């Protein structure tokens, strides 16, 4: 009964999206206010019924309703309750419903917080979101319905959720990532609405900036948690694999980062207008492209969902209409835009333009690396694979000028600045950064490696410049007067500095050892002594297995007690390595339990990973920047102007 209700709600939501895409259009054409004002209410209906559908699916999972195909294939009575909840979006169909919930949620949020926008603009934005929804809802109803039944012959128990996905990271990672992907549709809608109206002044940039920052913040957090999940759950200590699906999330992030910076220029200086519109289209297009890559099976990946060509074709058509249509509109309208803001070679604008060039170049590198194998194969040149070395090398080249510029730009003035002002201070900072980096690495690790030196040098460079800039700002205005978006920049840049240092250090100084151990044996690694105390049976709710009890000493001092597990999930007949990690600000100790050898000993892998946590600390700081932008008074003041408007 409940699944039918969910199914029905989904159809109603689809109807709402159809209405939302048509009525405002008629309203705009006939200049009919009442039709235009339907848009926010239709958005509410869209969201409410999608929520009902989503809750129905969650209910089916929580109550083990194996008459629903999706539940039978992705859940099991023995699965813990919180994972049953997560399983409701662990499959292709379920995750798409979550996607829709967020899509309609964002649309509803726009309807709620856009009351101060001119009625026509607001209607256009909601209408564009309605158009996107029509495509997505049609997709889920026709080829990807999560409420399909197994009736009349339903199984007594389900096939269980993929053990890899049975992790706390899985509960929070997809929702955050989707919030980011889908959130980018809002600034896309603003850009398309601005193109449609032909009115591309700085106001659309101001309106769409907090939305972009919010989506970008979610995307950042989603990627960060995904990386942490891979590290903790895949059992071999890696945190980024340049897997096509990771790339699919990284590309929109890079473009959205460029967009945030470019929006600042459009808003404050009225420059980069057509470029900013293009980035807004590109960011959402890339998140759609990513969806296609993951769900169509065109590219092989560990993340890939079960594939079905009908779905691939549907998403591709959707892609062609949404991206092709918006790029066509862009071609026709953007060619008439005149940028008015003038600036000189050495100015904040020029620096931000440089930022955009690097970020777009990075996006192209990732796009190339992800799609080249496909293009190569389709051209009949055979299969090739582009692996980590390509990406790592290209990013190592890009990061130096990018991060150097990032350090200086906040100090450079808008319009024009004097280059000779920027000689002495950067020289001192270069020197200081280098000396500190060298001393730091030499004292901690002894052996100074180039990539690590580069990472720490850039960390110092960014942190020192940020400190200088903050000091200058605080000399001019008091702490409470500094706009939140300024702190957003500070925290975002510091976050990136942490990521760069973490990557540089952990990639160079992580050590690992494969050891064969009997109970009572010890192994030394990088000054740590790992002792294998005992092995015991574990008996989980839907798994069984072994746990190795390890203690780790450093110079006689107890560092950690760890329990590394090897789990067997009988329903899926899958073995999982549950690594044990002792996390620390400066280093992680990581133990993963391998197989039992014929002579009774165990194969174990131990790691020492210095500074790996800085990568995620950095990611979290960067996502905070998104939050700070939204908190900026300039965007919050809206409510006040609403009341002012009502009084007037």
């Amino acid at each position, binding site marked *: 009964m409940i699944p039918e209700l969910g199914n029905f709600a989904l159809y109603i939501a689809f109807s709402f999206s159809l209405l939302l895409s048509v009525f405002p259009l008629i309203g705009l054409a006939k200049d009919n206010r009442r039709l235009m004002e339907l848009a926010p209410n239709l958005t509410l209906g869209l969201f409410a019924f999608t929520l009902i559908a989503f809750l129905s699916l969650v209910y089916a999972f929580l109550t083990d309703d194996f008459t629903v195909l999706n539940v039978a294939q992705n859940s099991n009575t023995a699965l813990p309750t919180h994972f049953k909840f997560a399983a409701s979006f662990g499959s292709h169909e379920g995750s798409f419903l979550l996607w829709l919930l967020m899509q309609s949620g964002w649309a509803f949020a726009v309807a709620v917080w856009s009351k101060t926008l001119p009625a026509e603009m607001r209607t256009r934005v909601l209408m564009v979101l309605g158009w996107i929804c029509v495509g997505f809802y049609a997709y889920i109803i026709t080829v990807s319905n999560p409420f399909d039944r197994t009736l009349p012959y339903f199984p007594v128990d389900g096939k269980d959720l993929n053990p890899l996905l049975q992790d706390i990271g899985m509960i929070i990672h997809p929702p955050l990532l989707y919030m980011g992907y889908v959130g980018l549709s809002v600034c896309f809608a603003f850009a398309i609405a601005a193109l449609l109206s032909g009115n591309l002044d700085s106001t659309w940039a101001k309106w769409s900036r907090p939305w972009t920052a919010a989506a970008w913040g979610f995307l950042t957090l989603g990627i960060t948690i995904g990386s942490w999940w891979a590290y903790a759950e895949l*059992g071999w200590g890696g945190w980024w694999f340049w897997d096509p699906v990771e790339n699919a999330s990284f590309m929109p992030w890079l473009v959205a980062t460029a967009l945030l910076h470019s929006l600042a220029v459009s808003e404050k200086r009225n420059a980069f207008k057509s470029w900013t519109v*293009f980035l807004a289209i590109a960011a959402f297009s890339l998140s759609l492209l990513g969806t296609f890559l993951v769900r169509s099976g065109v590219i092989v990946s560990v993340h890939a969902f079960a594939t079905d060509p009908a779905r691939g074709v549907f998403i591709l058509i959707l892609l062609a209409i949404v991206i092709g249509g918006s790029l066509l509109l862009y071609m026709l309208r953007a060619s008439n835009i005149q940028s008015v803001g003038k600036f000189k070679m050495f100015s904040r604008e020029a620096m931000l333009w440089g930022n955009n060039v690097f970020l777009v170049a990075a996006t192209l590198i990732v796009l190339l690396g992800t799609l080249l194998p496909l293009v190569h194969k389709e051209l009949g040149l055979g299969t090739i694979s582009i692996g980590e070395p390509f990406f790592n090398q290209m990013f190592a080249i890009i990061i130096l000028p990018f991060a150097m510029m990032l350090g200086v730009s906040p100090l450079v003035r808008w319009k024009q600045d004097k280059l000779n002002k920027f000689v002495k201070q950067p020289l001192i900072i270069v020197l200081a950064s280098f000396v500190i980096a060298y001393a730091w690495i030499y004292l901690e690790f002894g052996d100074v490696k180039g990539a690590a030196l580069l990472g720490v040098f850039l960390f110092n460079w960014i942190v020192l410049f940020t400190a200088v800039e903050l000091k200058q700002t605080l000399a001019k205005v008091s702490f409470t007067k500094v706009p939140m978006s300024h702190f957003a920049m500070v925290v975002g840049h510091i976050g990136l500095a942490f990521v760069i240092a973490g990557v540089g250090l952990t990639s160079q100084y992580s050590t690992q050892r494969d050891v064969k151990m009997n109970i009572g044996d010890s192994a030394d690694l990088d000054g740590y002594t790992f002792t294998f105390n005992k092995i015991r049976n574990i008996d989980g709710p839907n798994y069984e297995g072994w746990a190795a009890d390890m203690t780790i000493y450093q110079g006689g001092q107890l560092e950690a007690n760890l329990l590394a597990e090897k789990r067997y999930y009988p329903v899926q007949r899958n073995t999982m390595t549950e690594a044990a990690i002792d996390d620390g600000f400066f280093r992680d100790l990581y133990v993963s339990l391998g*197989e039992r050898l014929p002579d009774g000993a165990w194969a174990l892998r131990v790691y020492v990973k210095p500074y790996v946590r800085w990568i995620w600390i950095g990611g979290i700081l960067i996502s905070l920047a998104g939050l700070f932008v939204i908190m900026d008074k300039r965007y919050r003041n809206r409510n006040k102007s609403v009341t002012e408007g009502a009084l007037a």
Partner: protein
Amino acid sequence: MNKKILVTATPLLFFIVLLMFLLKGLFSDPKERDSALIGKSMPSFELPDLMNEKVIHSETTLKGEAVLLNVWGTWCITCKYELPYLTKLRQEYDVKIVGLYYDQNHAPEFGQYADIPSIRVEVVDMTNRLGNPYLYNILDLDRTLSLNLGVTGAPETFLIDKNGIVRAHHMGDVNERVWRDKLAPIWNEMN
């Protein structure tokens, strides 16, 4: 027409080219490799027996007599349904069947290793229950042979003639219909 349109059209053109590749990629059939494989010799290999790692099989062990090479694993659901029929083929038509066993979970790069003793127990247990069609099983732990054969999953079946030439490839389970319509004619021709 103003000149700027040339610039603003670039993304659209780029996207159209990309779209063509994606469309082609969607329909490019991974089975294409089949035609390239059929009529060629078995790729060379040296792999241990599933039950006894001291016994090493190679492409020469397969020569001399026509064999049906069946790619399978105990983790594969469809393979279970296939076992009784393959056993019947062995008993009634005297088809020589060799298993190519691979373990789904063996991924050293992910820190996961196959537990061979327990695989042996599972295999014996399953073949006792459902029938044992195999003369012997080749253990392809690193999936090199499977990869060279273009195997995309389990079960898959190859017919190899007495000179070690691959004559047929079937993806999915072998059942009565598949045998009668697709494999039997080639098998009879080979013998």
